[in-house]
């Protein structure tokens, strides 16, 4: 019996798929927890290695493991398990899209975080596993902080709980924090509970155009130093035009919103202003303006706010002369994404420039990772971890997955 036939025995014909993310490999999409469990047990028994994913929107954030026998998608594990609007909590299965959950809670005047790009193509489980955040991070903080609890399938077939469905809970170890950003290397999250937030009652979007990065960062710094508490603050460069746009999203109660808008206008006249539904549409456009689209790879820079300008300068200098695409900067949380234009250089050139950039960024306390470049060695893509931290992470991986059925190739190491 072939591998595909064995897998089909477990998930049925409708659960056996193909995916452009895994050419030539069987892809299974279990419809329930028990099927997922059987797939794990099968992998254990047959010493197979599998890669977990949702809809694949963030697969490029972690280097592709060399050895994968099949891939498991959670996209059929959909549905809301519990939505308590008055409690401000939501529990849903991992394959539910962030977009569907966002739409559901919006009906009750609530919102969930992270507000990730293209939410209808991103699953709850995938966002959790990738440790993703969105532009709302400036207001709500990183997405991993809003996970209240999980049910996770362990490589050995046990389904275990961590945390719960309450907004406040310190019972037991916070194992769900371990799953956030683990890229599916420890367990398969089957369901997760999220804290919800009050959606803004009113919104306003302001756009300022600036000639160069320095000017754009200067304006952003001034805005950050005001006590405006903007909801979003994003700098964008299209890659083709010379100017930068600085987009500020304000939200809140009516009088408060107007006050902040006036304060901002006192020292910088916006080139564009949108209110109400138009402001919401603008915020969604900004959110979905991922630099990945049409590019070969994206450089992801994380810095401290005070060193962001220097870090951006160092990064751009390291890639001088290489064709670049869109650049998005979130100065309030000191993150930047810089797209590399397709066919902009050889793999060797990329690896060399990455090394040079890291050398320049390390003294600034900034970190650089590369997303969506499967041809590069994992160590070139991600920051290296060493010493006791790496040893501890390896012990945790060993504790969860002693037979290593869950393929991973992140900072913890390849197999």
């Amino acid at each position, binding site marked *: 019996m072939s591998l595909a036939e064995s897998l089909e025995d477990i998930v049925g014909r409708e659960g056996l798929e193909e995916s452009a993310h895994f050419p030539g490999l069987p892809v299974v999409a279990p419809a329930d927890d028990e099927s997922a469990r059987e797939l794990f047990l099968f992998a254990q028994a047959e010493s197979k290695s599998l890669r977990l994913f949702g809809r694949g929107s963030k697969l490029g954030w972690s280097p592709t493991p060399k050895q994968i026998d099949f891939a498991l998608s959670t996209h059929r594990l959909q549905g809301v398990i519990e939505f308590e609007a008055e409690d401000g909590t939501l529990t849903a299965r991992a394959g539910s899209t962030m977009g569907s959950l966002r739409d559901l809670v919006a009906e009750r005047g609530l919102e969930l975080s992270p507000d990730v790009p293209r939410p209808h193509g991103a699953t709850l489980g995938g966002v959790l596993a990738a440790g993703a955040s969105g532009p709302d991070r400036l207001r709500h903080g990183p997405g991993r902080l809003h996970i209240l609890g999980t049910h996770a399938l362990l490589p050995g077939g046990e389904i275990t709980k961590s945390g719960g469905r309450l907004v406040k809970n310190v019972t037991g170890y916070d194992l769900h924090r371990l799953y956030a*950003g683990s890229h599916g290397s420890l367990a398969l999250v089957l369901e997760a509970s999220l804290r919800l937030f009050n959606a803004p009652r009113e919104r306003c979007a302001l756009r300022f155009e600036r000639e160069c990065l320095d000017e754009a960062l200067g304006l952003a710094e001034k805005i950050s130093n005001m006590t405006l508490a903007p909801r979003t603050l994003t700098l964008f460069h299209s890659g083709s035009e010379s100017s930068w746009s600085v987009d500020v999203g304000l939200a809140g109660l009516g009088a408060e919103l107007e006050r902040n808008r006036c304060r901002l206008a006192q020292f910088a006249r916006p080139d564009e202003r949108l209110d109400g539904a138009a402001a919401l549409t603008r915020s969604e456009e900004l959110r979905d303006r991922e630099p990945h689209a049409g590019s070969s790879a994206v450089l992801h820079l994380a810095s401290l706010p005070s060193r962001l300008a220097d870090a951006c300068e160092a990064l751009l200098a390291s890639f001088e002369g290489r064709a670049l695409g869109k650049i998005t900067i979130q100065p309030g949380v000191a993150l930047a994404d810089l797209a590399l234009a397709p066919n902009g250089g050889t793999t060797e050139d990329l690896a060399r420039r990455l090394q040079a950039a890291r050398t320049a960024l390390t003294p600034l306390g900034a970190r650089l990772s590369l997303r969506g470049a499967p041809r590069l060695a994992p160590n070139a893509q991600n*920051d290296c971890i060493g010493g006791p931290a790496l040893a501890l992470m390896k012990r945790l991986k060993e504790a969860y997955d002693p037979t290593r059925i869950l393929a991973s190739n992140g900072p913890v190491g390849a197999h």
Partner: protein
Amino acid sequence: MAHLRAIVGEEGLLEDSSRAAPYECDGLAHERCRPEVVLLPRSTLEVSKCLALLHSHSIPVVPRGAGTGLTGGATPVEGGVLLGTARMRRVIEVNAKDRFARVEAGLVNIDLTRACCDEGLFYAPDPSSQAACSLGGNVANNSGGPHCFKHGNTTRHVIGLVIVMANGEVLDLSAPEVDPVGYDLVGLFVGSEGMFGIATEVTVRLTPTPEAIETLLGVFASLDDACDSVSAIIAGGWDASALEILDKLTIAAVEASVFAAGYPKDAEAVLLVEVEGSAVECHENAEGILAILADHGVLEVRRAQSERERQKLWAARKGAYGAMGRIAPDLYVSDVVVPRTKLREMVRATTDICTARGLKILNVFHAGDGNLHPNISYDRRDSDELRRVIEAGDEMARVCVEAGGTLSGEHGIGLEKLAQMKLYFSDEDLELMHTVRRAWDPSQNMNPGKLLPIRACMETRTRPVPVEASGRAGS
């Protein structure tokens, strides 16, 4: 012993029984075990050397911050050495521009805000014990406080740690990372109750001081009305930073103490509400909340007219536990969480559990989070009363879990709720936690006997043997 003394100095080692006596319990007064030795190192290096030495002799180590925990987490029930961080209180760095601070783990919570308030910043988690509790203890228990309703528990504010592992190895995760590189070890460590290692340095996010704060005190003729108001404020989408309820007995205790703030003694309950933000934001939120209070039968609303008056109202709230000391020699502070929509019925249920056992219950709790603190005043010298207190605590935990709640919102599990862990988690859940613990500390000598019930010989060891019965007192 000589080796340990050489590491920490004469002042850093207490082996005399009388000097070790203050370390025999934390705030869970009925569980006591005197440590054989108390170590008070002054630096990460000294902690590392101590742990390496103790590890080589397989000696259990119990970490302790300020000893203000309420679950017996710092009680050395399995003997060994108690290692305190009381002599590690330096503020290493306040970075106002990037809004973070690095401090030693023994720093008292309130001292961090004192160190950064001139920069227009504060440290948000504010346990009632914030004038005494340490940041390292807050990390171990993932502590909360009244304003964690808006700002979140400790875990939302910790962005880096220096951890000394059981074998003395130093894990430096102190860089203020935007996102973890690899697994989120910092996030996992917070709330691990001293069982993974000892945090010696803490890097925390600092919060800008709000432009304005408004404090309201709603006076109610019934506890139910106060609870329902809270549910309505949350459902109405109003942004409060704290929603705290005190019941009649608590008000009486507070008003009879040095913390008296003029809370009306004839009220059945008061609701302390705080909103923060810009002046306009505060005003709009306060007005919205006032309308809800009016809809729920509030008898009277007082608005703090000055910072002094505000501080007084909060001193009364945070001093409530101290004030309860007037009623009886001992206080059992329970900590459970219920869905916010079930606040009224669960407050009533916990009250019934205590009154049915002839116990005096005082309620003061973080209503906005559904985090109840049914407090029982008692005398632990009365063995029957102590038995009823423990029984009531167990029962309150059970009914809360059955109602969709959880065992702890901010105090942790420690010794107090070992048995109840099986109400909330399955054997598989607990086994995974054991496995994760072993990955951090294969020796399992870090704070043994806490948080995770041990299954052995068909018997679950869930409570320590009282020190008098074990004959270990003063040994």
